């Protein structure tokens, strides 16, 4: 192995590694041989199952392609069409609304939940219960809530009736449909997200808390001064992952509102899917996907910059 030779180089500290300090001139290749070895299996998976299909998709966005007959090159026609497509702009707006509600509620609730789990109990039962919704497939969760929130038969509306309140058409009211879909997904992903954050909390050395406690810091202060800063790399990752996942909401809409009422829930991914598989307009769908990709990349880049995800404040601990 080459590792012996690398020993001579200074071991990379977290700081150096993340800030990309230029390597010593004598070792321009750094750990490259080892790195290639370590990255290779994942790289094969990446190239074959992600990169190649993505490039192919990019090419298809420049064609008229109905899936079943060969694509025909049309230049930027699909992108030009997109500019004047009111359903596309509507889809962006609706998706943004969904993401804001879903991420907002989910992030606050899951941080709260993770901290509670971390500070209050080590019970496996509690953690298991919280993760339960994630054990159920998305489509079933959507169907279950669709059934429970039914205007006429749903148990939730029966409960509202019983409390003397007006019934609510959760999925049928164009103002409520998106918040409803967003909250259903928050319900499913809350435990999952909380568990990711919980894993981050576990990485914070208890000694940090002990020191803070000795200084007489309250739980509240510790949360803002100790927990959140130390959690930053993990939080950054969780935010990037959940935001990207949130933009790609599809199943829940497909089995409940199917984009209705009157396009109120026609989120971008549902629109893309409908175009590609129901309307055989794959070229145009690919163009929409490419735009979505650029938007997501932009959002993720911004998030990473803002949260300085590459760094950890743990280095001094």
């Amino acid at each position: 192995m080459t590792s012996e030779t690398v020993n001579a180089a200074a071991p990379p500290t977290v700081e150096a590694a993340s800030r990309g300090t230029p390597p010593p001139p004598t070792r321009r290749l750094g750990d490259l041989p080892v790195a290639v070895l370590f990255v290779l299996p994942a790289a094969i998976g990446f190239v074959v199952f992600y990169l190649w299909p993505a490039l192919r998709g990019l090419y298809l966005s420049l064609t008229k392609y109905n899936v079943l007959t060969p694509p025909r090159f049309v230049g930027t026609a699909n992108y030009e069409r997109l500019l004047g497509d009111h359903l596309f702009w509507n889809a962006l707006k609706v998706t943004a609304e969904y993401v804001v509600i879903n991420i907002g509620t989910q992030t606050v609730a899951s941080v709260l939940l993770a901290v509670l789990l971390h500070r209050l109990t080590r019970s496996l039962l509690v953690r298991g219960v919280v993760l339960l919704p994630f054990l159920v497939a998305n489509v079933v969760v959507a169907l279950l809530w669709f059934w429970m929130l039914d205007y006429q038969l749903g148990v939730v509306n029966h409960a509202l009736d019983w409390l003397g309140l007006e019934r609510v058409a959760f999925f049928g009211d164009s103002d409520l449909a998106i918040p409803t879909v967003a909250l259903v997904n928050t319900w499913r992903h809350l435990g999952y997200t909380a568990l990711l954050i919980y894993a981050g909390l576990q990485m914070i050395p208890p000694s940090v808390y002990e020191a803070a406690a000795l200084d007489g810091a309250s739980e509240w202060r510790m949360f803002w001064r100790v927990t959140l800063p130390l959690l930053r790399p993990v939080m950054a990752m969780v935010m990037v992952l959940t935001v990207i996942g949130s933009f790609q909401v599809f199943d829940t809409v497909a089995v409940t509102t199917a984009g209705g009422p009157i396009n109120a829930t026609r989120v971008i991914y549902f629109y893309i899917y409908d175009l590609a598989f129901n309307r055989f307009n794959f070229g145009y769908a690919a163009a929409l996907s490419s735009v979505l990709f650029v938007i997501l990349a932009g959002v993720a880049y911004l998030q990473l910059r803002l949260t300085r995800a590459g760094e950890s404040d743990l280095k001094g601990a």
Partner: protein
Amino acid sequence: MAATTALVGRPRHGRVIPWGRIAGWAVLVLVMAATLFPFYWMLRTSFSNTRSLAAGAADLLPADFTLGAYRRVLGLSSTAEAVAEGGSGGSVNFWLFLRNSIVVATSVTVGQVFFSAMAAYAFARLRWPGRDAVFLLFLTALMVPPIFTTLPNFVLIKELGLLNTYLGIVLPHLLMTPFAVFFLRQFFLGVNAGLEEAARIDGAGHVRIFFRIILPVNRGPITTLAILTYITSWNDYFWPLLVGKDESVRVLTVALGIFRSQTPQGSPDWAGLMAATLFAALPMIILFAVLGRRIIDSIGYTGVK
């Protein structure tokens, strides 16, 4: 400081009246109730007769109690019986499909977590030219809409002659997911450099550091990732539906798809669907119950053996 610390212990605040803790517990109980009620509703629905559900929509107890849905899921009831309770004639070879699900989810989890950990190590702890660029490239895979990947991947698996094989089902997720690499890299970044240095002075190479330091230190995150990967893989539906139609490799979720609606505008066999969902989740719940203690121990431990 040295990162080797003892078991996580909560700081003590004996002198303060624990109002915060009481409020905390109240919130926790509320969250658990909101989480559990829909599950009660699934349970209640699964013990109902689908045909009676509409008339008994407001009952908190099962409508027209029957075990029929579970019999349908296990393929124990005849077509006539099933149809009489609002189900379909589809039967499920439960144990075979359970085995298939376990094989698929286990191999995906082991492969994906291991290979992603290797890549994450290279991205987090090694220095090489182009590292950050390659990592960003990997990260962009997160944003590739699945609609791009499904068709070409299906064609590829078919061309490789892997349709209706375990390998065909697991291959796209076996080597990496951008999520797993990203997740582990973030945790590996946080590993105290002193540990590595010490090992290196002892003459350890990268492979040894990876296996003896990085993996054990990050047992918590790795376990978490493994759990999440296992669940995701277990619930995957559309890909195995495309690639693994054959009974010999059909996984549980695909087999249980028959409880969804069979006709346009038709409603699903609610009781069957809920029974099937609970059944599909049960193996995982049992798995966690059995392995629970181990998982907790590994998550709660941040040091090296």
